[in-house]
């Protein structure tokens, strides 16, 4: 399984980001930020019988005294389906090989956070654990926000550390899994953030974040294999029907990865359009695996009638391939790094959807949302290695409740 380093429902960071908004900071101190509970259920489903995930989320947050705010966050993912494992060759053409539809996994994440509001900003800490039958992650985050310039400017600094363990399991039946000895490994991830949020005028603001992440250890995927048609002079693979195990090597990636992000976020209110709000985000990403990516997102928050708000959104994403990625390899690599993971390929993706929400009696907010995503080889801004066999779509349906006390 791939080692993705962004966790779900990291509400500490997001809450801190919202609270860091100039004009929002006094909410903690002056209003006391009422105790509240957020719950959501989402169903994620991929095309062509691939993965399906039911996601249950719940967050409870409460002020303690004038300056403290605590929260507890829980997420459960129930995963089932099949996933690409490798590529074979059939009559010289690559074909996708998937796991049997036997993946059954449950991920549980719990994290606890606390924020302290001082006169010129907030300090937040968050600790948590995420566990699956083949992955555990223990993490710790610190986040600080400082208001300057009459609270028209907010500076942010953050640090995060995660210690993860990854391994592979086999399905032993009856919901039991057996760990494959020697598979996977440990990894550590260090994250840092510097950011600035600036009020541009009474209707708009801009945020810029720079983040740097360093990962080290086992950064590959213990379930994926790469086809190397000519792995060594001693082993000859028939390129017409290269299915013999000797043609395959385990997914292998460098043991270090440095990732950089520049994120720009713009929010503007349109008073003349019934207080509609435009959100526009642009993110540039680059890492030392030679992957670069651009992400464009826009959302429009439109109050429509009697407290109902409609929020359509669109997204475009483009990435270049990792330097050790190919759908399959014609020759052996001197560094021994191979990946045919579709997430390491060159591709583009478009997405979009809408959310409809309404607040009742200033206490209960209900929302329903739908989100679609389409991944296409060749839709990226850069043209690099990849295969249309990896094209897929997914949809996400969500209902959520927020209750303030």
């Amino acid at each position: 399984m791939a080692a993705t380093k962004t966790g779900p429902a990291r509400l500490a960071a997001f809450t801190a980001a919202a609270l860091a908004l100039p004009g929002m900071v006094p909410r903690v101190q002056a209003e006391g930020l009422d105790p509240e509970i957020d719950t959501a259920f989402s169903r994620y489903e991929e095309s062509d019988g691939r993965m399906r995930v039911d996601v249950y989320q719940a967050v409870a947050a409460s002020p303690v005294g004038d300056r403290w705010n605590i929260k507890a966050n829980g997420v459960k993912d129930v995963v089932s389906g099949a996933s690409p494992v490798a590529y074979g060759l059939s009559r010289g053409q690559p074909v996708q090989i998937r796991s049997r539809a036997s993946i059954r996994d449950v991920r549980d994440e719990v994290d606890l956070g606390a924020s302290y509001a001082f006169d010129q900003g907030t300090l937040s800490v968050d600790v948590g654990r995420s566990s699956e039958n083949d992955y555990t992650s223990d993490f710790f985050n610190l986040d600080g926000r400082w208001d300057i310039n009459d609270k028209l400017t907010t500076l942010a600094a953050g640090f995060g550390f995660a210690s993860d363990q990854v391994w592979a399991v086999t399905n032993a039946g009856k919901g039991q899994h057996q760990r494959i000895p020697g598979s996977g490994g440990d990894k550590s991830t260090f994250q840092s953030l510097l950011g600035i949020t600036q009020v541009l005028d009474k209707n708009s603001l801009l945020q810029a974040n720079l983040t740097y992440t360093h990962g080290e250890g086992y950064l590959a995927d213990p379930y994926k294999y790469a086809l190397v048609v000519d792995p060594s002079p001693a082993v000859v693979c028939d390129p017409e029907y290269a299915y013999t195990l000797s043609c395959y090597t385990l997914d292998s990636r460098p043991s270090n990865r440095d990732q950089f992000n520049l994120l720009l976020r713009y929010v503007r209110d349109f008073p003349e359009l019934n207080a509609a709000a435009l959100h526009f985000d642009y993110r540039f990403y680059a890492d030392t695996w030679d992957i670069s990516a651009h992400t464009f997102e826009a959302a429009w928050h439109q109050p429509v009638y009697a407290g109902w708000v409609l929020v359509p959104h669109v997204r475009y994403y483009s990435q270049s391939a990792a330097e050790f990625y190919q759908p399959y390899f014609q020759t052996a690599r001197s560094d021994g790094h191979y990946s045919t993971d579709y997430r390491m390929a060159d591709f583009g993706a478009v997405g979009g959807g809408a959310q409809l929400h309404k607040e009742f009696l200033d206490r209960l907010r209900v929302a329903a949302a739908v989100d679609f995503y389409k991944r296409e080889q060749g839709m990226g801004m850069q043209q690099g290695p990849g295969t249309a066999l990896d094209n897929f779509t997914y949809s996400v349906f969500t209902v959520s409740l927020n209750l303030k006390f």
Partner: protein
Amino acid sequence: MNSTLPALALLPALLCSGCALPKVAPWERGTLAKPQMALDPDGLDAALKRHTAASKEAASGGYGVGGGGCGCN
């Protein structure tokens, strides 16, 4: 690594260089305090979207520091 990164990193500075941003008095910040003006008006929804995208793409992060890795298929 892409050589455009250093240039893009300078973008915020360029955007703000020479800017004479108007002062917005506290009593003029009512609009900025509205829920829809928060950077993430719906934290759970935003977190799920980013988590889902990050599990299918090579790029991740940028919005804040946060741990909790996953073995996303």
